[in-house]
C-alpha cells in the first residue's frame, strides 16, 4: 500500500494517476441522473473502492488511506484531470461523512460509512424546504418523538441525487415551539421507508438531478440521530463549512477545465481577438489563484489553523470562475456552443446527429450556473464576508 502517511505525496499522486489512466472509461458514462447512469456510476464507485481510492481521506479502518489534506487535493486534481466519472456518492462522502466523523457515534460510523465508501448505499441531502432555502433556519419539517425513535413529516426539496438514492440526511424541527435555529435535530432516514414519496424534479438541462421528498409519519430510529436531539443546527453548520470550503470544491475541477479551455483556444481561437484571449487568460489565472489559495489554506490547516467564514470567499470565487470559464468556452465555440452533449432524458430516436465533444461544454456550463445558488447563495456568502470577516454592521 503506497500513499499512506509519511510516504512522499508524489508517490500517492503517481499511483492515483496510473490507476485512473488504466481504469477511467474511455466513453463517458450515461448521465448519473438516469436509472442506467446511476447504476453505472455505482459500479464505478465499486471499482474505486476496490482500489481503496473512493474515500482516500478517511481512516484506513473505513476503507480510506488516512490521506492528508494535501494528498486529498492531489487525488482530486488527478481525478478531474483524468475526466473521471462524477461522484454519485458525493453528498454522503463530503457532507454526511465529515459530520459523522465529528459528531457521530462509533456505532453510526461502523454502520453507515462502509456501505457509503463502496456506494452500496448512496446518500442524498435533504436540507432545503419550499420555505427554507437561503433561510435554512426557517425549517418546518418535523420530528415527533415515537416509540424507539422519531416520526418525520413535511417536505424537503432541491434534494440532490434523491431520485435514485437510498438514504438521506437533514434537519428536522423536534421542538415545536422552538424558534429558528433552536430545537432542530440532525437525522438520517431511509428513502425507501413507508411514508416517503420522492418526486423527481427536472433541472435546467432536462435531467432529474434533484427531487422533492414528501414525508408522512416516516419512522426514523433513535440510533439515526446525529449528536443530541435539538443540537442539529450547530452540527449542520459544521457540515456546511465543509461543503463550502475545502471538501466540495477542490481546485482540480477548475484547473482541469482551465486547461481544456486553453486547449480549445489553441484550436479554435482567433489570435487577433484579444478580448477573447483576455477572457481565456483570466479564467486560467483564476483557476491558478484558486489552486494556490487552496494549497495555502491547506498548509494553514495542517499547521493547526481553522477554517471559518473565510470559506465564503472561496465559494463566491470558484462559482463565478466556473461560470465565466464555461461562458468563455461557449463564446469560443460560436454556433456550435448551442449543441447539447447530453442526449436528454427522453431518448428521442430522431437524435441521430453527434455533437462531438463540444457538447460537453454546454453541459458543464449549465452545471456551472447552479454554483452561485447551491451551498449557500453567493448573496448569503457576501453578507457573511461583509459581517464576519470585514466587520461591517449587521
Amino acid at each position: 500500500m503506497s500513499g499512506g502517511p509519511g510516504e512522499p505525496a508524489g508517490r500517492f499522486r503517481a499511483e492515483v494517476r496510473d490507476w485512473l489512466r488504466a481504469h477511467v472509461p474511455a466513453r463517458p458514462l450515461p448521465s448519473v441522473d438516469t436509472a442506467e447512469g446511476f447504476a453505472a456510476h455505482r459500479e464505478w464507485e465499486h471499482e474505486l473502492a476496490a482500489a481503496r481510492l473512493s474515500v482516500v481521506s478517511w481512516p484506513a479502518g473505513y476503507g480510506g488511506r488516512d490521506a492528508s489534506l494535501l494528498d486529498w487535493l492531489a487525488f482530486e486534481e488527478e481525478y478531474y484531470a483524468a475526466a473521471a466519472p462524477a461522484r454519485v456518492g458525493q453528498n454522503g462522502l463530503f457532507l454526511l461523512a465529515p459530520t459523522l466523523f465529528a459528531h457521530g457515534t462509533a456505532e453510526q460510523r461502523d454502520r453507515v460509512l462502509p456501505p457509503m465508501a463502496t456506494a452500496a448505499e448512496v446518500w442524498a441531502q435533504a436540507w432545503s424546504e419550499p420555505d427554507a432555502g437561503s433561510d435554512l433556519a426557517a425549517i418546518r419539517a418535523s420530528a415527533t418523538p415515537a416509540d424507539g425513535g422519531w416520526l418525520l413529516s413535511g417536505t424537503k426539496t432541491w434534494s440532490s441525487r434523491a431520485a435514485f438514492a437510498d438514504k438521506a440526511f437533514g434537519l428536522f424541527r423536534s421542538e415545536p415551539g422552538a424558534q429558528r435555529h433552536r430545537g432542530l435535530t440532525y437525522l438520517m432516514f431511509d428513502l425507501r421507508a413507508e411514508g416517503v414519496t420522492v418526486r423527481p424534479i427536472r433541472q435546467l438541462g432536462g435531467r432529474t438531478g434533484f427531487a422533492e421528498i414528501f414525508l408522512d409519519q416516516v419512522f426514523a430510529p433513535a440510533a439515526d440521530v446525529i449528536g443530541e436531539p435539538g443540537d442539529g443546527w450547530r452540527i449542520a453548520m459544521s457540515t456546511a463549512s465543509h461543503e463550502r470550503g475545502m471538501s466540495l470544491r477542490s481546485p482540480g475541477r477548475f484547473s482541469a477545465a482551465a486547461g481544456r479551455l486553453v486547449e480549445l483556444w489553441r484550436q479554435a481561437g482567433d489570435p487577433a481577438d484579444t478580448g477573447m484571449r483576455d477572457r481565456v487568460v483570466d479564467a486560467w489565472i483564476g483557476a491558478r489563484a484558486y489552486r494556490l489559495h487552496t494549497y495555502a489554506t491547506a498548509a494553514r490547516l495542517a499547521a493547526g489553523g481553522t477554517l471559518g467564514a473565510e470559506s465564503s470567499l472561496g465559494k463566491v470565487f470558484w462559482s463565478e470562475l466556473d461560470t465565466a470559464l464555461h461562458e468563455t468556452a461557449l463564446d469560443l465555440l460560436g454556433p456550435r456552443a448551442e449543441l447539447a452533449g447530453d442526449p436528454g432524458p427522453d431518448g428521442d430516436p430522431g437524435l441521430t446527429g453527434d455533437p462531438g465533444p463540444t457538447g460537453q461544454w454546454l453541459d458543464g456550463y449549465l452545471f456551472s450556473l447552479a454554483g452561485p445558488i447551491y451551498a449557500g447563495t453567493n448573496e448569503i456568502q457576501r453578507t457573511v464576508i461583509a459581517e464576519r470577516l470585514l466587520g461591517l454592521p449587521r
Partner: protein
Amino acid sequence: MTPGRSAEQAQFTASLHDMLADAGVPAAARNWAAGDRAPGLAVWRTLAALGVTALAVPERDGGLGAGLADVVGACEELGHHAVPGPVAESVAAVPVLLAALPGDAAAGGPAGDLAGGDLGGGAWAAQWLAGLAAGELITTAAMPPWLPWAVDADAAGLVLLAAGDVVRLAAPGARYRSVDPGRSLSEVAGGQVLSRGPAVAAAVTRALDAGALACAAQLLGAGRALLEASVRHAGQRTQFGRPVGAFQAVKHHLADVAIGLEFAGPLLNAAAAALDAGDRHAARDVSAAKVACTDAARRAARTALQVHGAIGYTEEHDLHLWLLKVRALAGAWGSQAEHRARVMAAISVPAGADGAGREPPAGQPPTGQPTAEQPTAEQPPAAQPTAEQPAAEQPPAEQPAVGQAAAGEPAWS
C-alpha cells in the same frame, strides 16, 4: 495574513506596518507632491533602518540578500501606506539589475572611467548596491517600453536607462505630472553605457520582472488600504438612521473587493517564489500576479470612492493618495494587455514544449532567462516544498482532450 506567506515574513511586514502607521506617511506624501521631499526622505531613512532598502541587495554588497519573496512582502506594505518615491525601482528593480549585471573586477568607478564605454558591472555596481543597502542612495530607472519614464528622478541619486541589452547612466529631461501627485515622471536621455551584452539582457529581464512584481505588490497593499478605509467609513457614516455599511448593497460591493484581494495574494507570492527559484514559469507567474493585483486594486479603488461618496472625491481627504496611486501603478511596469499576452504566450504552447525557445510577442521583454531550465520530462518529479505550496504540488502533465466531461455534481441547499 496574505495566503502563502510564511509566519516570519508576516512578522516582518507587521513590524513594517506598525512603523509606517506611526510615520505620518500621508502628510509626507502630500509634501512630496508639493515638492518638499524632506518628510518623505525621512520615511525612506526609517525604511532603510529596518532593512527594507537592503533586502534585494546581495550580502557581498552589504545587503540582506533576502530574495523577492521578502521584497514583495515589504513592497505590499509600502503600497498599503502609500509611501511616496520610486518604490518598485529603488527597492526591487535597480538592486536586482545591478546585482545581476556581469561582474568586471577591473572596472573603475563611472566618474573616472566612463570614456572607455562598456565598464562591466564591477566596482561602481558594488558601490551603488552598498549605497542602497545603507539607505544612502535612492535610485530610479526608465526601462522602456514597460517603463518609459523615470519616476521621481529629482529625488534619486542615481538614474539609469535600461533597455534590451544595454544599461546606461541617464540624465533626466522633460518632466511630466502624474495622475498620482506623489509621482513625477521624467524623460531620460541615455548617457554613458555602463554595461552591454547578452548577460545584460538577462539582467534587464530579471529587473523588469522584479519591478513588475514589486508594483503588483504595491497595488495589492493599496487595495487592502482602500478596503480598510471603506469599511471604517461605512461603519461610521450614518444615513437613513443607520451606518451605510449596514446596507446590503454596500456590504456586497465590499465583499467582492475582499474576494479579489484575497485571491490575488497567492499569485503574488507564488510569482516571487518562482523568480527566486529561477523557475521557468516565473515570467508567466509575474504577469498573472500583475494582472490580478491590478484588477483587485482597481476594484478596491472604485468601490472605495463609491462608498466614501463626495468626500472621497476631494483632495482634503487622504483617500485620494491611494485612489490615484492605484490608477498610476495600474499602467506602470507593463499594461494589463501586455501581461495577459505574456501569460497566453506561456500557457498556449503545446504540451511538452512550453517555455522553451518560444519568441516573445513583439514589444514584450523576453519571457525567460537564458539560464532557465529546459522543460522537464512529461512526468514531472515530486515538488519540493515551497513557501507557496508546502508539499506535493505538481500539475498533471497531460490535459485531457477538449470537451471531455468534468466530474462533479452540486449539492443543493
